[in-house]
């Protein structure tokens, strides 16, 4: 027996499904940092330049997760 409104339940489900897409950027950021760490390990002198580009790359990758987050927030609080 399920109690409560179907609408709220479906909203929660939709928000959860939207956030499922965060796994892509997660892998992406992991790969990015892996590459950067290896590069720093090989050439520690270039650490600052590598870090800077790594952060930029992470920001662009993270943007995709943020889109999913915004969609989830809109489903929860606007619809």
């Amino acid at each position: 027996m399920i109690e409560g409104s179907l609408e709220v339940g479906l909203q929660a489900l939709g928000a959860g499904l939207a956030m499922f897409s965060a796994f892509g950027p997660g892998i992406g950021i992991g790969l990015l940092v892996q590459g950067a760490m290896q590069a720093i390990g090989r050439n520690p002198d270039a650490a600052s330049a590598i870090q800077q580009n790594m952060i930029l790359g992470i920001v662009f990758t993270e943007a995709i997760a943020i889109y999913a987050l915004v969609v989830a927030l809109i489903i929860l609080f606007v619809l």
Partner: protein
Amino acid sequence: MSNLNPTLRGLVYLGIGIAFLVVCAGLSFAVLPGAGIGVGLPVITVPGEALGGALPADEDYGLGGGLAGWTNTFVAMILADIMVLAFAFLVRRSSKNFTRQVPSRLQSWAELLGGFIYSQTKNFAGLRPLALNWLFPLAATIFVFLLAVNWMKLLPGIESVGVIHCAHEGFTGYPTRYSGGSYSLYVDQALYAGERATEETYHACEEWKEAGSVKPSKEALDEAANTLAANEAALIAEIDTLALNDAERQARIDAVRLEAVEEVWEHPFFPLTADELRSGVIPYIMAVTPYVRGGSTDLNLTLGLALVAFFAIQIFGVAAQGPAYFQKFINLDAIGNAGKNPIGAINFLVGIFEIVSEIGKIISLAFRLFGNMFAGGILLAVMSLLVAFILPAVFIGLEVIITSVQAMVFAILTIVFCAQAMEGHHGEEHHDDEHDQPVSNVTI
């Protein structure tokens, strides 16, 4: 304690830590709800809330509605503007127009923030005067303004102190209590997320407000409470003989309570207990609209800033390359040379895609900042609801990092996009120059 060995000392510290946590949990789960001031969830809405309680669809919402129509995120933006201007003014004064040899404390701060953005500008956009004289001030202003706006939402009192008004349909709210000339939410359970208001509860509450927010006299409340206490005791004695489950039992008790509350309040929503009734709890669903909410939790501010950055990118592109800048989007050269070099005509299509990605910049800049800040606010609210002490402090520390990183990212992305626009297609020679330098000279 210094004569103990490290293991024992560690044990003592751990014990103190655990005792502290137990006290905090006791406070937030027993003491605060017992006093009726437990932690409640704030109203979570995406658009900024008007101080008068109006919804975005209402006529008096926004700047047209006067002071009551102002949204709390707008107030935050004005405050942040004032803070940035005051900071700039004070820095100029305390550093005597940056002529002092030994920098004052404020000047060191300004030089730290400005120097960071300056080195980033040099790094990405090179040493051309356009970058250093025009792009650097723009990016630094965005950075300092965003720091002020983002950090402001972490201050105590912001997003919590505000106007109490009737909860609109679909929002959650709590009963309130009037004491000492001000209203406060009455939250008597731990982990209580409030009740969802419907159209009827909103109208009941509004009717009460329009009738002058009359509070029943002490005698009337006492009388109703005494009747309720007697009725409830009789009911409990009666239903104890019946084999009812908890939900049915509670429903019957609530019915008796609601009946008693109706004696003194019109169309109440909350079935108050006798004690609550006596202490003057107001049984309508009400919610708080904070006076100030973090400015960047409103899409209007982030979208506005993103538009500023977008137009800056185009202006820098034109200033550096002249009208040729627009060849990036509509590649006339590629069409003109199509006779000689048919494959090159594909550059025209690439240009069309550039238009899409240019518009994508607005969206990604705006939503990145908005998403991070809004989610951070919700995270803090939920963590404070779970445990009122210690735990939120950890997340506030996390938020300090996230807010600064987002401010930095917005500023740096503005620099990077503007630098790309200034370089255009013929930026390769410039890159070659950079490769000749030793890498270690590049600083963050």
